[in-house]
């Protein structure tokens, strides 16, 4: 009996393995194609053994070659990840003068200085897109500094609990994240169209995510804690805006944006994506805030906090995980969005994001599948990373917070 059960168990695992292979093959094939030479792609039968070449990725790079600062940033991204991994895995005792906090401070200062240096050493501007890319780069630096001031852990030194240690280690990852964006910015400045579009995707996705999560959190708190007339109807109204087919919504938006001159602008797309994501953020954040016990707030109110202070000092810190999960979902949605971007931007335009541009590579005759594969893979990679980071919240995210585990 026991051996038969074991046999069934392994048989099922074999089926699972087959399923994984079937589902991952297309993604693997994107990677494989992106690493092939042209002569290995246009064969009659698919080639499984091939020489690895980076020529497809080189096609995405700036025509005049890659600027040296790119490698500087790449180095910083890698060093940041290594430092983070090192300090997370090994419990290293550092001398007092060089505590984890000070090391983080030094490391992040180095990063900000690199940003400023690379901004000053950019090549002269030639085209309008490069002017835009430069402006975006400046925006990135400003955002980075603001982000540091807001979330940097060195503002508070509340003893060496495991929580603060964790936060201090996380500072090593921040330059890696911002550094990746900076690489896109440098390459866009160098004249790479593809990275210019990726940078647009990052700016529009990031901007709309910050707005949507901010607005959504406020509204979700109100819906979670206060009595509101017609609450269920309002919530239904908010959700129903998300259910509308993009093609239906985009027709009047197109007319409106044409009249207001918002077509093919970053601001226009950020506004639209915020609208699109805010309903999702409200529903998801309401689920997270519902889970925070009311007693916490009551205790704070008794202690003399105002409602708003309670929200800032009790609810927000308690819902950091929820905010992060919601933000990642909004970011992925905005990153992947296609229909709005297709209609409201122009290919080769100022605010065009990556999805319409990757798909507009459709030539009348042969398509350069290698280049498409390389672009696609770069585009998919961040989403895949975030999916693995968010895996415990996926269920909530795809069901608008209705189903929790």
């Amino acid at each position: 009996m026991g051996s038969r059960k074991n046999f069934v168990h392994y048989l099922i695992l074999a089926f699972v393995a087959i399923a994984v292979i079937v589902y991952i093959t297309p993604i693997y094939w994107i990677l494989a194609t992106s690493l092939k030479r042209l002569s290995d792609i246009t064969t009659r039968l698919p080639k499984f053994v091939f020489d690895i070449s980076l020529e497809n990725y080189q096609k995405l790079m700036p025509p005049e070659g890659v600027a040296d600062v790119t490698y500087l940033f790449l180095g910083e991204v890698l060093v940041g990840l290594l430092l983070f991994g090192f300090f997370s895995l090994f419990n290293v005792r550092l001398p007092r003068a060089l505590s984890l906090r000070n090391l983080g401070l030094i490391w992040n200062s180095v990063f900000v200085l690199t940003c400023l240096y690379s901004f000053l050493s950019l090549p002269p501007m030639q085209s309008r897109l490069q002017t835009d890319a430069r402006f975006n780069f400046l925006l990135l630096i400003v955002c980075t500094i603001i982000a540091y001031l807001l979330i940097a852990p060195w503002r508070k030194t509340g003893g060496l609990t495991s929580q603060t240690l964790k936060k201090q280690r996380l500072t090593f990852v921040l330059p890696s994240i911002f550094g990746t964006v900076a690489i896109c910015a440098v390459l866009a400045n160098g004249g790479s169209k593809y990275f210019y579009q990726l940078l647009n995707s990052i700016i529009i996705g990031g901007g709309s995510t910050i707005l949507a999560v901010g607005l959504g959190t406020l509204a979700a708190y109100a819906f979670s804690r206060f009595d509101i007339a017609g609450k269920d109807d309002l919530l239904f109204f908010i959700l129903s805006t998300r259910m509308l087919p993009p093609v239906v919504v985009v027709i009047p938006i197109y007319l409106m944006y044409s009249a207001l001159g918002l077509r093919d602008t970053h601001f226009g797309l950020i506004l639209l994506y915020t609208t699109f994501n805010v309903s999702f953020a409200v529903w998801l954040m309401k689920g997270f805030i519902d889970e925070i016990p009311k007693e916490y707030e009551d205790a704070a109110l008794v202690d003399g906090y105002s409602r708003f202070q309670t929200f800032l000092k009790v609810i927000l810190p308690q819902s950091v995980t929820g905010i992060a999960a919601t933000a990642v979902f909004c970011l992925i949605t905005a990153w992947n969005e296609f229909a709005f971007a297709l209609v409201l931007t122009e290919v080769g335009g100022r605010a065009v994001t990556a999805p319409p541009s990757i798909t507009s590579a459709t030539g009348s005759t042969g398509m350069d599948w290698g280049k498409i594969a390389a672009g696609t893979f770069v585009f998919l990679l961040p989403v895949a990373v975030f999916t693995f980071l968010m895996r415990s919240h996926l269920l909530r995210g795809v069901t608008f917070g209705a189903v929790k585990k």
Partner: protein
Amino acid sequence: MSDYQLKMAFIMPTMILLILMNIFPLLWSLYLSFHRYKASMPAAPRFIGVRNYSRLLADPEIWGYFQTTAYFVILAVAAQFFIGFGLALLLNRDFRYKGFVTTLLLLPMMLSPVVVGLFWRFILSSDNAGLLNFFLSPFLKSPIGWTTNPKVAMLAVVIVDTWMWSPFMMLIALAGLSAVPKSLYEAADVDRASAWFKFREITLPLVSPLLLIALLFRTMDAFKMFDIVYVLTREGGPGTATETVSMNLYKLAFRNYNTGKACAMAYILLIIIVALSNIYVKYLNRVKGEAQET
């Protein structure tokens, strides 16, 4: 600040945004749907009553697009349901690296449909290095023109959509399956119930509410399908073999710039979607209520 002021300050920005960016444009398109208007022409909208609607509803081609959409929705959702539920049944046990394997399977649904859909055209291609045709070649005489043959083009769209979205069904079904109390199965084992009996009498009734949510969600999403058709079969081709309602609406509005008629079409679509989402939200709230009671 009083509670009332705080409440208003927290809700109003969201509401104003939604009204400005959703309700106002929709009202405008309602206005335009009763007019003859082309966005590419300088001529002002001219009132023509319900003629846009009556023309659309009398047009057999429009019903053809609805038929295509329905055909796609039924095929794709059914395939996703069975494959996703089957995968969930397989995964509903303890084994090493379960979390990793599940996340790997979930990857397709997080990716951009349009970007991955484009690459699927390469995988499905019949002339150069098509991966699927290569794997099917032992069973076929000649390679299938997945995206060029009108008879199988819809099947190609269904395959890609199923690859993307059956993990979604799997995720929700898995949540339902793991919530079934083990004691029920143990009790059934004591009574020497057959595996089929356990599945029918314990698993299905307890998982069905969640499965229904997943089905409704997918139905609505599949009904709106636009991205994959746009890239995979080049805007609903070959001919109009895979032209869904959304695709047709896009062509009407941004290829022909027949804005008035497109607005009317959008409203017909809108009514159907609102009805569907109404059912969905009602059901969502009910399941939520049940979950809180237990």
